[in-house]
């Protein structure tokens, strides 16, 4: 797998999201220092609101799933799987993400792509 270095840990905001351009794809990166994985990356595009805004949503947990709520119409997208909790058919692309020596690395291609119905 090829990794994309999008910056350092200082570019992230704890318990919130930022957006990076990876291979011309907009990727929303969420930093949760208290969780096991600590960093999550999903597509920044909200297929319901049709705008690149998910990095600006609020992070939360719904029945144990870590999610981001779209700032447009408030649907929840699971950070780990990309699934939309309200619309079963929608799955966002999910990218591998990790922090290594203070750098934030994102996989160049999404690891899960399920067709968006």
């Amino acid at each position: 797998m090829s990794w994309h270095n999008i910056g350092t840990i200082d570019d992230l905001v704890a318990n919130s999201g930022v957006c990076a351009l990876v291979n011309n794809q907009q990727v929303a990166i969420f930093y949760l220092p208290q969780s096991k994985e600590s960093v999550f990356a999903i597509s920044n595009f909200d297929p319901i609101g049709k705008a690149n805004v998910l990095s600006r949503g609020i992070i939360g947990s719904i029945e144990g799933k870590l999610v981001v709520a779209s700032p447009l119409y408030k649907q929840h997208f699971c950070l780990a799987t990309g699934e939309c909790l309200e619309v079963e058919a929608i799955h966002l692309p999910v990218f591998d993400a990790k922090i290594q020596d203070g750098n934030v690395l994102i996989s160049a291609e999404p690891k899960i792509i399920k067709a968006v119905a």
Partner: protein
Amino acid sequence: MQTSQKILIIGNGMVGHHFVEQMRQSDDKANITVLCGEANLAYDRVYLSSVFDGKTAADLALTTLENYQQLNVNVHTQQWVEGIDRVSKVVTTQTGDQYPYDKLVLATGSFPFVPPIKGNDQPHCLVYRTLEDLEQIKASAAASKSGVVIGGGLLGLEAANAIKQLGLDTHVVEFAPQLMAVQLDEQGGTLLKNKIEKLGVTVHTSKATSEIVKGESSRFKLNFSDGTFLETDLILFSAGIRPYDQLGKVAELELGERGGIIINNRCQTSDPDILAIGECALWDKKLFGLVAPGYNMARVAASQLSGGELEFSGADMSTKLKLLGVEVGSIGDAHAKTPNCKELIYQDPIRDCYKKIILNETGDKLLGAVLVGDTRDYDTLLQYMLNDMDLPEHPECLILPDSAGAPSLAGSALPDTATICSCHNVSKGDIVGAIDGGSCDLAAVKSCTKAASGCGGCAALLKSVVDAELASRGVEVNNHVCEHFAYSRQELLHMVKVESIKTFDDLLAKHGSGHHGCEICKPAIASILASTWNDFILEPAHVGLQDTNDTYLANMQKDGSYSVVPRIAGGEITPDKLIVIGQVAKDFNLYCKVTGGQRIDLFGARLEELPVIWGRLIEAGFETGHAYGKSLRTVKSCVGSTWCRYGVQDSVGHAIDIENRYKGLRSPHKFKMAVSGCTRECAEAQSKDIGIIATENGWNLYVCGNGGMRPRHADLFATDLDTPTLIKYIDRVLMFYIKTADKLQRTSVWMENLEGGLDYLKSVVIDDSLGICQELEEQMELITQTYACEWKKAVESPEASKRFRQFVNSPNPDDNILFVQERNQIRPATDVEKREQKMTQNRIPVMELEEEQADVLA
């Protein structure tokens, strides 16, 4: 039940797909294979015309290959079947592939009938049926000025709407003397024609087209049998559908005289191992061209193949729809063919509507109805007919406008057997069952029963049934903020204050559950913390709690861009400042709109532009307007005694003082104020949370009004107050509201829920009955003393400024935010316009050029 029977389905339209789902549900072992002729899998044909509103093929798709994989269903697309060998039970396709079956299901659908008119096979003579057809229509319309639809039935009028939306001069030609002859009577058809013509579509009835020849002023000329003619560039045939029964012929199954594969109540053809469903099937000499009966057949077939006993017993062909913006409904025996039936007609030439109900001989049962121009009564009428319910004593009340005697059939009045959703065959009993099973809101009932997810026509009725059912169970309302905090907002505020809690994490650790919170509790607690301690909301401990509007100190718009609203206290602004706003808007190409709160909204700012824009505004002396926050918006004012002949106090000066006092105050919801200089009330203060009206002797104070979705007039709270007392009372009312209101509760609702209402509020604020007034005032003092412009702080702090980057690793702008010009300003591009713009951009071959463009935009 056989454990692994081989089921082969030919055709993957809406009905074929529904069968696959139903079959899989009732038998998880069956070996299911689908042969689909087209490249696209099943899509929603009911909403086909929404493609012209920017919907894509993906939006309409009902399923995907992945979805079928998950269901363990084999799919083969672009496989046209040529032969069926009934003896060895094998199907052969055009490519020579062979598929064996135990049971074969034909769901081949129908095709549009093109009347045998000479010249009907030329380019620009099209049909309206599939996604591919729409592409052809679009392409042809681009090279045409006018279009004719041949056929004035339901589909024909929908097709007319489509070509009208494409900007063509639109005509409809109908052979019969009226439109929608199947569903409407003559009067209804005539009214529909008049209404449609008013909308700019020309209707020609009683016209038989004899030939299509080359036109003089247009591409074609239609010659009619009566000697008249019509010139046009595009012709759409919509003269009904014909069953696609070719495979029935090939397999030598019994067919109807005029086509259609004959089926019995079990959906079996003359070969019991071959079933037919949907528009290719002929039941009791009838074809069914609607989706609901097709779905019904799919359910019957699935039941038959899994040992069930469901039978098809015909279908109600009632329809309600909106054609070219005109509401049309047809129920049951619309043509009053039942012997000795009676008709009741309501005709309103002013509101331009026509309603007819058809009753049985004794006038106590409904047999049918025709509605044109107003279909509000459709749901109720349909329920009367379907459930064979006794009509009220004066059945005319069912169609008279706002009739007091009309019984409400919503929800509780219906019997459990009443069908609510005919597409998915969901009865009221099923809905009650879903609620019994734990579905406790509309969304849960929808996903559990699938009701209202077909044509959607029953959505309103479904909601009323669900609401009535939930209400009758007295569904418990708890005021817990969310799953992470089992407390009300008021209780949380109390904890924050008493225990001196300053961060969300602290509160969550001490009184909440889990580690993360959610988008409900985070902003609510951010607001509590701000109301109590007034720390900068973009500090690291608070930044993740805020709604996007608070985080970026601006209002997000639908495309992800933001609007910028500088504070213009009291609506007073100098010419120099106006020029600054204009210049900033010009430099950043922002859309300008004057708001109802007497200030100026600048739209279309990109995230990365916000700090630069605000740098300019702050330099010119502006402050943030808090248009993004749950906080004071504006204090509106009339011009007052300074200029006005009638004014008795300086309302503008007063409004400015008040706006400056309460600006930045975070509260459970936004709030607005206004000051009027005299009793004429030009500032509309009585529609505000806090309204102030000048009198000869001082000020009258009004509280807890609002406009918006549910307007409420403010209540008169106290009269003839001097200025210090007025301020004291406002301090106390607002702080008491902040301390005791629920999250996102406006002052009006707060007041209505306050036990004791206005009198109680007066006793707390004026008589200090709770002994808390000093505390309320001190808290307000702390907030007003610690006010700071959030944008000034954000622009000055490098850490906060970093938040306003679109990408942490690139200076590029978001390429999905695109604008077009309208009335000399920008507006967001529609999806279609975006695609066009991106296509043009993609033609730019050199990479550097794209980057250069990006820099200019950034």
